[in-house]
C-alpha cells in the first residue's frame, strides 16, 4: 500500500537526483555516486519523475509486456470492484461480503505499480491505523467498507463509499495510462509485493475484519511472479542460478498456499492458517525476498 509506493517513488526520485541514466546493463567496475549529498524526500513527486526507460531492447520489451499485464488487471479490477460496490449499494450484506475479497485480487497483483498514483492508493486501500479512528471521515475505500460489513454487519453508510471506490478506480485507470512504468519500478515492485506479504498479510493485519488475508497474500505472490516472469528470459541468460532460485522460491510459496485454496476459487480464512505453516511461509517468503533483491542489479536497472 502506501508503504510500497513511497519506497518506489523515493527510489525513482533518487535515481533521477543521482543522475543515473541506464547504461544498458553493462558491467561497471566501480561504484559511482559517492559524494552525492542529497538524500531527497519522497514527497512532491510527479509520475514523470519515475526513473528512465532502458536502452536494452529486451528489457524494454519485457517492460511493455508488463504494462499490458497491468492494463488487463486494471480492467479486471474495475469490473470486480463494480460487483462489490453494486452489492453494497443494493444493501445486500451477504453478497457484498462474498464479493469483497475477489474485488481486491487485481489490485493486490499490481499494488506497487497502482500505488504510484499515491492519492488513489490512500483513498482505496488505507487501513484504519492511518487515521484517528474508525469514525474518521477521511477513511475511505475497501477497508472502511470491510469494517462496516463485518464489524457492523451493515451496508448502511456504505453507498457513498462504494461509489467513491468506483470513481477512484476509474481515476486510477486513467492515470496509469500515462504513468511511465520503468523497468526499475517493475523489478523493485516484484520484491515489494513479497515484502508486503511478509509485513502485512502473513500477520493478518490487512483484512482484519473479513479474515480474507490469504486472498491478498496469493494475489501479491501472483503479481510478483508476473513481474518476474516478463524478465525471466533475460535473467536466465545472464544469471541462471538466480532464476533457478527464484523459480524454486515461488514454487515453495505456492506449495504452502495450495492447501488453503477452496473449491470454486479463493482461500480459507486467515484463522485457518496453522501456526507451523505460517512459520514455514515466513521462511519461504524471506528467502524469496533475498533472491528478488538481486533482480534489479541482474537486469542492469538498479
Amino acid at each position, binding site marked *: 500500500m502506501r508503504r510500497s509506493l513511497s519506497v518506489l517513488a523515493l527510489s525513482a526520485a533518487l535515481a533521477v537526483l543521482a543522475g543515473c541514466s541506464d547504461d544498458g546493463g*553493462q558491467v561497471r567496475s566501480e561504484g559511482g555516486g559517492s559524494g552525492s549529498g542529497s538524500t531527497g524526500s519522497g514527497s512532491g513527486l510527479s509520475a514523470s519523475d519515475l526513473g528512465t526507460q532502458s536502452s536494452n531492447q529486451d528489457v524494454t520489451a519485457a517492460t511493455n509486456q508488463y504494462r499490458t499485464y497491468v492494463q488487463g488487471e486494471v480492467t479486471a479490477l474495475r469490473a470486480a470492484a463494480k460487483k462489490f460496490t453494486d452489492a453494497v449499494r443494493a444493501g445486500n450484506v451477504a453478497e457484498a461480503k462474498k464479493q469483497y475479497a475477489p474485488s481486491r485480487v487485481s489490485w493486490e497483483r499490481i499494488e506497487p505499480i497502482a500505488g504510484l498514483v499515491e492519492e488513489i492508493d490512500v483513498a482505496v486501500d488505507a487501513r484504519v491505523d492511518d487515521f484517528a479512528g474508525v469514525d474518521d471521515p477521511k477513511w475511505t475505500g475497501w477497508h472502511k467498507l470491510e469494517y462496516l460489513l463485518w464489524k457492523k454487519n451493515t451496508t448502511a453508510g456504505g453507498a457513498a463509499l462504494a461509489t467513491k471506490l468506483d470513481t477512484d478506480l476509474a481515476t486510477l485507470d486513467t492515470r496509469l495510462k500515462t504513468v511511465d512504468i520503468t523497468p526499475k519500478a517493475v523489478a523493485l515492485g516484484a520484491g515489494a509485493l513479497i515484502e508486503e506479504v511478509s509485513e502485512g498479510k502473513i500477520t493478518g493485519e490487512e483484512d482484519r475484519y473479513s479474515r480474507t488475508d490469504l486472498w491478498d497474500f496469493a494475489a501479491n505472490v501472483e503479481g510478483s511472479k508476473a513481474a518476474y516472469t516478463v524478465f525471466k528470459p533475460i535473467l536466465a541468460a545472464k*544469471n541462471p542460478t538466480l532464476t533457478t532460485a527464484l523459480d524454486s522460491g515461488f514454487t515453495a510459496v505456492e506449495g504452502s498456499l495450495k492447501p488453503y485454496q477452496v473449491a470454486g476459487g479463493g482461500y480459507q480464512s486467515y484463522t485457518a492458517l496453522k501456526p507451523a505453516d505460517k512459520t514455514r511461509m515466513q521462511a519461504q517468503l524471506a528467502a524469496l525476498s533475498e533472491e528478488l533483491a538481486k533482480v534489479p542489479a541482474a537486469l542492469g536497472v538498479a
Partner: protein
Amino acid sequence: MSSSAGRRGSLSRRAFLGTAAVGAVAVGGAAAGGIAVATSGGGGAAPAAPGRGFRGEHQLGVLEQPAPHGLLAAFTCVDPDRETLARTFRELSDELEGLLSGRPAAALDPALPPADNGVLDEVTDPGLMATLSVGASLFDDRYGLAARKPRELVTMPFLANDRLDPRRSHGDLLLVLQGKEPDVCLHALRRVMRRTRANLVLHWLQDAFTRPDAKPRVGQTQSRNLLGFKDGTANPDAGDAELMRRLVWTAGGGEPAWTAGGTYQAVRVVRMLVERWDRAGLTEQEALIGRHKGSGAPLSGTAESEAPRYDDDPDGERTPLDAHIRLANPRDASTRGTELLRRGFSYSRGIDGAGLLDQGLAFISYQSRLAHFLAATDRLRGEPLEEYLLPEGGGFFFVLPGVTRDGDHLGRSLLTGMP
C-alpha cells in the same frame, strides 16, 4: 503501512550508486579495495574477535568472562528433511566462523545488496562470542534424530512458580551472542539470519546486559543483578579446567558420543517485580537471598569471598533455612560436585499492561548434567523469594561441541554418519 526507514535507506543508496553491474564482483579478501563504498556497508571487514576466535574444543561464551551485552535468539527450523538441516548447520557454522575469525565479507557489485549490513564498519574490537545450542524439539519426529538426543534433554516443564509464555519459551535452536556493545550482537544476528533465511525462523529474542568484572576473581564479583545483589559470587572457578571438565562439560555417562565437549544449558527468563522489591526492607531482602546486599558477604560471615557456613546454624538463625543461596546450595555432601556455572544477564523490556517495569534476569546455567540444575530447582521450589519473581520464558538446550579442525562444523557430529 508505516514506511521503513531502513528499507528506504538501502533503496536510496542503491539509487545513488548508479546503474547495475551483473553478478557479483569478487574482490578477493580486500574488502576495502576497489569499491568506494566499502566503508558504508559495502563489504566492511568483519573485525577480528578477541582471543582464540571460532575454533576450540568447546564453543566460546560458556567459560569465558561474559561480555557486557548479550542477545538470546531462539529459532524454529523449517527444513523439510535431515539433509537440508545438515546443510543449514553447515551454513550457520560457517557464518559464525566468519564472524568470529574476522573473515572479511565479500565486496559485491554495489548495485546488489551488500554482503554485510555495515553496522560494525570500522569497529576493530567488537568482542563477539557466539554459543549455539539445540533444544529437545529438534529431536522430535521431523528429522529422525530421536536416537541422538542427549539423554537428559527435555522441553522445559513448568517449574517452580512458572508462568511460561510459549512465545518466549523453547526453540529448536538457541544462539547466545555476546559483545562489547549491543550492536555487536545485532550485527551478527542479522548476518546469521540472512544466511539462513529459508531455514530458520526466529521464535523469540531477548536482549540482555551485564557488567562483567574487569578482573575476574574466584569467589568475588562486582556484577549485580537488578535486585541490586551481587550475582556470580559463588560460581565455581571457570579457569580450573579439571573442575570444568566435571561440572560443565558433558562426556560419557551413557550420552551419545557426539555430545562430548558440549554442555546442558538451562535458560530461565525470570521477571522481577522490581517496584515491590524496592519496597522490601533491607533486612528482609538480605534474609531472602542469604547474603549482605552491600558487601555480598554471606550472612554467616563478613567478607564476600568467605564460603557460607550452615553447619553451625541448623535452625537458620543467621541464614534462614529458606534463603535463596541456602536452598540453592546447602553446601553439604548432597550437593558437592553438582555446582552450576551461572552466566546470567539482566534485561529490561519496557513496561507491562499495569504500568510496572518489565525487568528481570535471563538466568543461564551450564552443567554437565541437567539433573544438577533440576535438583537445585527442586530445592528452591516455594522459596520466599518467589514472591518477587515470575519465570516467563527460556528453555532447556544442549550446547554443541566446538569445532577443532578443517572440514568440521557445528552440529556435524550430531547430523552426519546417520542411516
